[in-house]
């Protein structure tokens, strides 16, 4: 059978590609934000914070593209689900970029304060995990891979556990007098920023599932894995220790 409405479908594919490129920028800036934080790189922080405006502008462009498709092509079925998912995912990506910029802002505030190796190790691990979640979300989107999208929740459970571990380490470090209270507060916020990036990645995965299966995310059920790992900090290897063994 011949495909009809080819230019419309190409346009839809183009909007998908634009979203993937937008998400790719976030995948790229997460490790850069982590490096800025760990290296106290003020110049890098400034660059990333200013770059956020570009991502915001790009987000608006993708959104406008989706509005044009809705207005002119009246998409239905999987096409409709793609456009609706794109509109939701734009917001997740844009917010995640803001959070990466927030990490850079926090790194300015704690500039000049040394962090002990344990804290540095967990920060590195949180950055890696948040980036991995985001990268997996966008791969699932590009490949319409429901299994990969479904795995994001468990990846996020690991990030949540790291965050809890990090908060415990902050208390420890602050109690031992190695960091100020102000620094401790900033670091706790940084942990929260990574954790939120992970959540946005999970939300993107839910939208991929919506595209593939048509099922709307159900937030009424508790997330089993999160509770299991989240309450059992021992289950998560401490960064550094795991590498030594």
């Amino acid at each position: 059978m011949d495909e009809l409405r080819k230019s419309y479908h190409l346009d839809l594919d183009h909007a998908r590609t634009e979203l993937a490129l937008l998400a790719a920028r976030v995948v790229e800036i997460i490790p850069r934000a982590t490096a800025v934080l760990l290296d106290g790189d003020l110049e890098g922080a400034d660059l990333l914070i200013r770059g956020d405006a570009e991502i915001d502008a790009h987000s608006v462009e993708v959104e406008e593209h989706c509005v044009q498709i809705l207005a002119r092509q009246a998409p239905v079925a999987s096409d409709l689900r793609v456009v609706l998912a794109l509109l939701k995912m734009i917001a997740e990506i844009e917010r995640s970029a803001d959070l990466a910029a927030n990490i850079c802002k926090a790194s300015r505030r704690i500039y000049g304060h040394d962090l002990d190796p344990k804290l540095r190790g967990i920060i590195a691990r949180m950055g890696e995990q948040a980036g991995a979640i985001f990268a997996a979300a966008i791969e699932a989107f590009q490949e319409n891979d429901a299994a990969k999208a479904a795995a994001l929740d468990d990846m996020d459970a690991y990030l949540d556990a790291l965050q809890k571990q990090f908060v415990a380490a902050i208390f420890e470090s602050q109690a031992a007098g190695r960091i100020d209270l102000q620094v401790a507060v900033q670091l706790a916020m940084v942990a929260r920023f990574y954790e939120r990036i992970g959540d946005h990645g999970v939300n993107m995965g839910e939208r991929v599932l919506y595209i593939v299966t048509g099922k709307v995310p159900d937030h009424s059920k508790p997330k089993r894995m999160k509770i299991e790992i989240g309450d059992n900090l021992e289950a998560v290897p401490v960064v550094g220790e795991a590498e030594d063994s």
Partner: protein
Amino acid sequence: MSADAAGATQPPYVFSTTDVAVYYGDFRAVRDVNLQIRQHEITAFIGPSGCGKSTMLRCFNRMNDLIPSARVEGAVEYHGVNLYDPQVNAVEVRRRIGMVFQKANPFPKSIYDNVAYGPKLSGVKKKDELDDIVERSLKRAALWDEVKDRLKSSGLGLSGGQQQRLCIARAVAVDPEVLLMDEPCSALDPIATARIEDLMQEIKDEYTIVIVTHNMQQAARVSDRVAFFTTEVNTESDRRTGVLVEYDLTGKIFSTPGDDRTEAYVTGRFG
């Protein structure tokens, strides 16, 4: 939810078909159609040309009888009565189950006489009674205000959209239960189309409507349920037959269709 509670939310069936196949000579136009049309709903039949949707529509008021080579197999029940039972009077069937065609086809008579024609045939003679029927029918067809001052003018002098509404008025004048509409808007401009669509929504509380449309957005806009038909080609004989692929709530068909063939058709990935 109990079965009773579930049943309470569903309107009763007006039509129920079982394994319906329609032949024109030895050509099988459509096969294995099993579906139920619910009361006071608008059901849309969609699908590519030659999929059997108009053929199926014509089964519901035995219009296929008028084609000498046509033959219907299986059961078409109207309120539990087999429409094709020899005891059933086809003229009475068509009075209860009216039809509106693709091309507006008013009689070459006055607007008044077009609407009064059916009631007169069925024995209404009193002028004031006929006047009432004409006014009520034209009002139901949302045409009264436009023609009330020229009821004696020819129906053929109306615009295309008005002619189609006149045909709807003519169809409802005999007080049918069902209106079958075979692409009623395909010759109309968007405004006339919107008028007919509004009209369908306004009268669906009184009638059960089945519409065949080539305009998928129209099906999405007006219908409660959609039946998607397509053609299957027998690889051995190379003959085409229409089949019912999917029948579901309109919202489901246009957001998450259950069959890949429906998905391909509504998104325009198949033609």
